[in-house]
């Protein structure tokens, strides 16, 4: 069943067509990967879906309801949020307080109700050891985890992850992939933008490929990676031939 349906989405910045007629569906239990060269419109797509930008044309339908004109906090409360590529924690707040904010406002809980849930999320994401540190003082990997922790805190069912695994070492990457698999088991629907093909192929069941704002391919990872147009536009070599 379709949970989120992106229909003919178009978004321009001046003369630049960042997105052109992009259409795809996200289904129950999906882990959907979105790949494409830099500037293909992946982050713009995320920002349009969560309501940071308003699309010029097209519609975004979430569980039968159009969300194209809603602000991010409304979209979040309905059940879609994202983690940002450039991490923006609430710097003067501690790691724990960052997660608490997401719980209190995303799920409309009191602080007391939020506290045990925040601890649980930090435990799950393996950042409990830094929970009382200011979010300025933790490593980039932990800040990316914190982005994810906040997204989980809001209780959103659909989480858009914008390069959440970038810049990690192989061990951290493996841990990150395991977290994504576990989230899928817990019923989350994930849309992942990532450049690391190893991670994409490891966790995604379906891929959408963007290039210059247009969707050029869609399908299961193996087919997509062998697609002539995808290889020309993005991959450059048949990395998936094995």
């Amino acid at each position, binding site marked *: 069943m379709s949970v989120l349906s992106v229909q003919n989405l178009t978004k321009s910045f001046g003369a630049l067509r960042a997105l052109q007629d992009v259409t795809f569906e996200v289904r129950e239990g999906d882990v959907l990967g979105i790949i494409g060269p830099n500037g293909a419109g992946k982050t713009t797509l995320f920002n349009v879906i969560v309501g940071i930008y308003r699309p010029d044309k097209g519609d975004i339908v979430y569980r039968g309801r159009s969300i194209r004109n809603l602000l991010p906090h409304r979209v*979040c409360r309905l059940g879609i949020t994202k983690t940002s590529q450039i991490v923006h924690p609430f710097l003067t707040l501690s790691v724990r307080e960052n997660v608490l904010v997401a719980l209190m406002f995303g799920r409309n809980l009191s602080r007391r109700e939020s506290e045990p849930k925040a601890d649980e999320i930090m435990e799950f994401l393996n950042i409990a050891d830094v929970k009382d540190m200011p979010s300025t003082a933790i490593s980039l990997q932990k800040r990316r985890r914190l982005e994810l922790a906040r997204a989980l805190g809001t209780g959103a069912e659909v989480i858009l992850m914008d390069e959440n695994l970038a810049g990690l070492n192989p061990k951290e990457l493996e841990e990150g992939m395991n977290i994504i698999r576990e989230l899928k088991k817990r019923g989350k629907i994930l849309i992942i933008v990532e450049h690391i093909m190893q991670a994409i192929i490891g966790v995604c069941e379906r891929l959408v490929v963007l290039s210059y704002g247009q969707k050029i391919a869609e399908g299961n990872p193996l087919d997509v990676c062998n697609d002539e147009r995808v290889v020309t536009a993005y991959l450059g070599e048949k990395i998936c031939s094995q």
Partner: protein
Amino acid sequence: MRIKNWAGPVIFFALLFVPLLSPEGYYYRTLCMIFLWVGLASAWNLTSGFTGYIDFGAVGYFGIGNYATALFMTRANVPFFLSIVISGILSGLIAIFIGRYTMKLRGAYFGIATLAFAEAAKQIVLEFDRTFKVRFFEGSHGITLPIAHNEVFFYYTFLVAVSTVVFLVFVINRSKFGYALKAIKEAEDSAELAGINTRRYKVSVYSLTAFLIGIFGGINAYWSTYISPLDVFSVLHTINMIIMALFGGTGTVMGPVVGAFVLSVANEVIGSRLLYTWLLTLGVILLVVVVFLPRGITGSLSLKRFKR
């Protein structure tokens, strides 16, 4: 080294008994002036310190509060306390309207828009009568209020008002509302993504600040007994609030209290002795604070919270 939570109540109770010492009128006036500035700086801090939206037009609501109270009391014979409450509500309502538009702007643009609002309010009060050939605001003549009460009355009025504001900031600082404001200050987009209706919180706190400043404006009108647009809408008042809050530390409960207290006392003690060099001295003090204690006095102390 954080200022302990019991400091506030202890100071409040000590201040309650000051009139027993039957001090001279000069000390009453000085204390009232300190209370006024602590209140204004704390109210300003609530919006600008917590959300990071630096309001350069806060004096607009001070002036509105002054004029509303003066007009209610002299034209309609409304009792003083009722007048200041209505003045506060009026300020708050005007702020909802102004905030809906200015709060969409960020950084310097917000500052300029609010500055323009305050200047516009001043010009309206100055020129309204001449333009419409009526006698309402009395233009640059100003309004004289009845002289009725003694110093003790104003002392307690200011004391109750300022304590309420500081206590309110204390409560908000630990509340869910406070977390929304801090999240907006740190990363507004992330705040939206975390489910915070940023627009509503920004306008709410802006209106609350205006309400509080309006009440202080109302008390000021009765206290001063004479108000004129150039005085109560003076941009210097806004700058004072900003400097005091920065000096003590923005985004904290005690910062603006300490800042307003220190600078008011300094202004009184040093300012009267160094008549010509006081502003210069103040400038040097501020430079030192900004360079060496960028988070203000209390802000720099509370950083130790994270150093274990």
